[in-house]
C-alpha cells in the first residue's frame, strides 16, 4: 500500500478508464439526466456515495462470507441483492435524518438500485484486487478508493456533459441528432480528448 498505487488508481479510474466514457457503465442516467446541471450533480453525488459504500460492503461480503464457504459463484446474485438492500437502507436513513438532502437526491437513489456502475465497480474491485481467491495486500482500501474514484469520474463526465448540453439547447442542431444521438457523439469526442492521459506514468 503506497501513495503511488492510490495515485494511479485515481488517474486511471477518473480519466483513462472513466466509468462512462470508457467502460460505458451507468449510461442510461448519463444521457437521461445530463440535461440540467443541478440534477446531474445531485445524481452524481448519489452515485458516488452509493458506489463507495457498495465497494466496501461487497468487499466484506466476498472476503468473509463467499470465499470461506466456497460460494464465489454466488457473487453476482449476492452483490445485486446487497446493493439493492444497501440503497434502500441509505434512502431510509436519509429520509429520516435529513429531509433536505432527501429532497435533493432522494429520487435518484431509487434509480441507482439497478445502475450498472455500482455493480460494475463491485465486480471490478473483486476482479482486480483478488488474485487466485486471495485478497492482495491493502485490497480493502484499494477497493473503497477505486469505488470512490469511479464515482468521481462519473461526476466529472456528468458535469461536463450537462454543461455542454445546456449550451446546446440554444444551438441549431440537426433534427435527427437532437438529444440522444448528439449526447453520444459529444461523449465520443470527450473520450477522444481524455485519451491524452493514456499511458500516464509517475
Amino acid at each position, binding site marked *: 500500500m503506497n501513495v503511488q498505487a492510490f495515485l494511479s488508481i485515481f488517474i486511471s479510474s477518473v480519466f483513462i478508464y472513466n466509468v462512462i466514457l470508457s467502460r460505458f457503465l451507468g449510461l442510461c442516467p448519463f444521457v437521461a439526466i445530463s440535461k440540467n446541471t443541478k440534477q446531474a450533480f445531485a445524481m452524481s453525488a448519489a452515485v458516488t456515495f452509493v458506489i463507495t459504500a457498495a465497494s466496501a460492503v461487497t468487499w466484506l461480503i466476498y472476503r468473509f462470507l463467499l470465499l470461506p464457504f466456497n460460494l464465489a459463484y454466488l457473487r453476482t446474485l449476492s452483490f445485486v441483492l446487497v446493493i439493492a438492500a444497501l440503497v434502500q437502507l441509505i434512502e431510509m436513513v436519509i429520509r429520516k435524518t435529513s429531509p433536505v438532502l432527501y429532497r435533493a437526491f432522494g429520487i435518484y437513489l431509487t434509480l441507482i438500485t439497478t445502475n450498472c456502475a455500482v455493480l460494475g465497480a463491485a465486480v471490478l474491485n473483486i476482479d482486480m484486487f483478488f488474485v487466485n481467491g486471495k485478497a492482495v495486500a491493502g485490497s480493502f482500501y484499494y477497493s473503497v478508493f477505486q469505488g470512490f474514484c469511479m464515482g468521481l469520474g462519473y461526476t466529472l463526465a456528468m458535469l461536463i456533459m450537462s454543461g*455542454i448540453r445546456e449550451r*446546446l439547447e440554444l444551438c441549431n442542431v440537426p433534427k435527427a441528432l437532437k438529444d440522444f444521438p448528439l449526447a453520444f457523439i459529444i461523449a465520443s469526442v470527450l473520450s477522444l*480528448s481524455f*485519451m*491524452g492521459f493514456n*499511458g500516464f506514468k509517475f
Partner: protein
Amino acid sequence: MRNKLLVSGSPHIHKNESVPRIMWTVVLSTIPAGIAGVIIFGLSALWVILLAVIAAVATEAVFEVWTKNKITVMDGSAVITGILLAYNLPPNVPLWLPIAGSVFSIAIGKQVFGGLGQNIFNPALVGRVFLMASWPKYMTSFARPFSYDAVTSATPLAALKEGKVLEHLSYLDLFLGKRGGCIGEVCILALLIGAAVLLYKGYISWHIPASYILTTAVFMYIFGAKQLFHGDWLFHVLNGGLILGAFFMATDYVATPLTIKGQLIFGVGCGLLTAIIRIWGGYPEGVSYAILMMNAATPFIDRYTKNRIYGTK
C-alpha cells in the same frame, strides 16, 4: 445624398467588421507559418495543406446542401479549420490522411452541432485527435527538416519522452523551425508574425495565449527536470505545438469562455494540462488534448464567471 439626410435607428456608427472579414484575416495570418512549413519540409507539405482545405470546404458545402441550411463556405471558417488541421499534421503523411481528417473535423467537430458559431470543440483539433487515435503510425513519424525526402526523425519532444539523446539544437534553430514536427508548428517566428497581426487587429486578446504559455513555462520550469526548479522552460515553449495552439487554436471564438476571467482560467487550465501530459503522460505532446479538455469545460467556466448584471447582487 438623400440617404445621408435620413436619420436611421441606432447604432449610428458602424465598424466595417463581419464574420467573413475576420475569418479571412485569420486565414491571412496563418499564411506565414504555412510558407515556412513548405520551405522547411518541401512541396509535400503544400499538398497536405491544399488537400485539407479543399476537403474541409467540400464537406461543409455538402452538409449545408444536405441539411438545407444557408451555404456559408465562403465565410472562410472551413478554410481555417482545414489549414489548422493541416498545420497539425506531419508533412510526410499519405495524402488521404488530411482528407479523412478534414471530413471528420467538419462533420463531427462542427456540423453535428449546427455549424458555424455552435461548435463545442475546436473542429481542427477534433480532427487531429481522431487521426492520432486512428492512424498513430502516420501521425508520429516526422520528416527531417530540409531533407525533402523520406528520411524521418523524431521530434525533440518525442526524443525526450523516449529518453533518447537529443541532437543538439540551439534555441535559434528552434525559433526558426529547424526541427522535425508538424507542418505549421515548427517556425515560431512565422507564427508570431501571424499572431501579431491578429493581436494588432484586436481579433484575439492576449489573455488566453499569455496565460497558457506562461503557465506551461512555469510548470515546466518547476517540474520539467529531475530536480525541482531546473526545467528547461524555453525548450518546452519553443517545441511542440504550444505557440500554434496558444495563438490560433485556444483562441477559437466559439469554444472558449466569454469573460476575461474565464479566459484566464481557460489559459491556465490548458497550460497545466499540457505540461502534465508532457511530463507524465504517454504522449510526447499534449497541446491538442489540453485545449479539447478545456473546450469541454468552457460552458462550466462561463457559468461561474458570468459578469454581474448591473444592479443585482
